[in-house]
């Protein structure tokens, strides 16, 4: 990462190869189309390059930081495009199932994919109403009050569902998916 910060193109290429797969998948999940996802990923990676990669290790991993930038860009793109539909609401939506998986280039990548699958399993275990409000907020960029209008429930109910769902995900992480 220090070399990326010094704008070393070769180091940036390695950085791109390491994170572009999940970044693209996340962008696609948010914006719902391949061309728009490409635009989001391109914007996100070029902003990282141009900013000199102001990454603060104290605030988490490089991967989480990168994906956070991709998510923000994706939500911005959704908001820019007023004709965008709300994201699909099932964790098993067709686009994800039909997507061709990235090759498992390294053991580390294989392990990460295995962990990601575990996380998806934990998410599937959430009651649908909890998963739905979390997805609308996290991948759709909607506020709790917008979600309350969409699902026709009181604001307090929506916030309560978000809390229950997030605490369950966190608790599963603490268990190590045992």
């Amino acid at each position, binding site marked *: 990462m220090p070399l990326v910060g010094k704008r070393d193109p070769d180091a940036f*290429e390695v950085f791109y190869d390491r994170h572009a*797969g*999940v970044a693209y998948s996340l962008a696609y999940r948010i914006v719902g189309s391949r061309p728009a996802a490409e635009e989001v990923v391109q914007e996100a990676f070029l902003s990282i*390059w141009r900013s000199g990669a102001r990454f603060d290790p104290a605030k988490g991993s490089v*991967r989480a930081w990168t994906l956070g930038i991709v998510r923000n860009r994706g939500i911005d793109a959704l908001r820019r495009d007023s004709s965008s539909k709300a994201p699909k609401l099932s964790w098993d939506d067709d686009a994800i199932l039909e997507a061709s*998986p990235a090759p498992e280039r390294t053991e580390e990548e294989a392990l990460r994919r295995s962990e990601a699958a575990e996380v998806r399993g934990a998410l599937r275990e959430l009651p649908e109403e909890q998963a739905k409000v979390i997805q609308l907020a*996290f991948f759709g960029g909607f506020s709790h009050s917008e979600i309350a209008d969409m699902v026709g429930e009181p604001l307090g109910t929506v916030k309560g569902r978000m*809390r229950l769902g997030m605490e369950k995900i966190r608790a599963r992480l603490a268990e190590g998916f045992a």
Partner: protein
Amino acid sequence: MDERQHEQLRDDISAWIIGALEPAEAAALEEHMRTCDSCARQARWLQPATGALLESVDPIEPPPALRERVMSEVRADAARRQPAESRSRRSFWDFLARPATAMAAVAILVAGVGFLVFGDGGDDGTKSFTGEAPLISATLEREGDTGTLELTGLRELGGDRVYQAWVQHDDMVEDSSLFVPRSDGTATAAIPRDDLHGGDAVLVTIEPHGGSTQPTTDPLVSVDID
């Protein structure tokens, strides 16, 4: 704030961590968490769950054309930056290799020895240096990565030239601030935020009005950065 209110805030923390609060609500919660250990702890505990959400999507192979577009832009940008950085970060050792510069460096070194022998200042968080004749003295007062350079003995330059401060990093120099002396030959130059970070010394040269992207004259003074 009582326990019941904290319990309500726990709902807000979950909403905040997935970006679902309105901006004003988010700002109020963030302000509260600055002074509330209990809520800040809850937010820290939940944070890994957002990482799990980010990672929860199956990797989809991005198109090779996307990689080509990104890397092509990156390499073009790097190529555009290179000439500019070469101008502003020219090799300090190349600079010293010029005969006139080498002479000036010797003069500075001699003056520096005199400074050390006579033990003039430098024990109060400042670094001082005495430069060329007629005697120019410079004192760098450092605060973190910023600093203030105080100089005396400077001559007036007229309207077409200015003094320019530079920060030396290993064998490179980076431009810092421009300044002109007062009528009594004193001057104060601010070394902006972060300029001193990782630097070895602050140098001063005379440059054309508007400053230069690389030194065009020999350094008048050099003050070590601790």
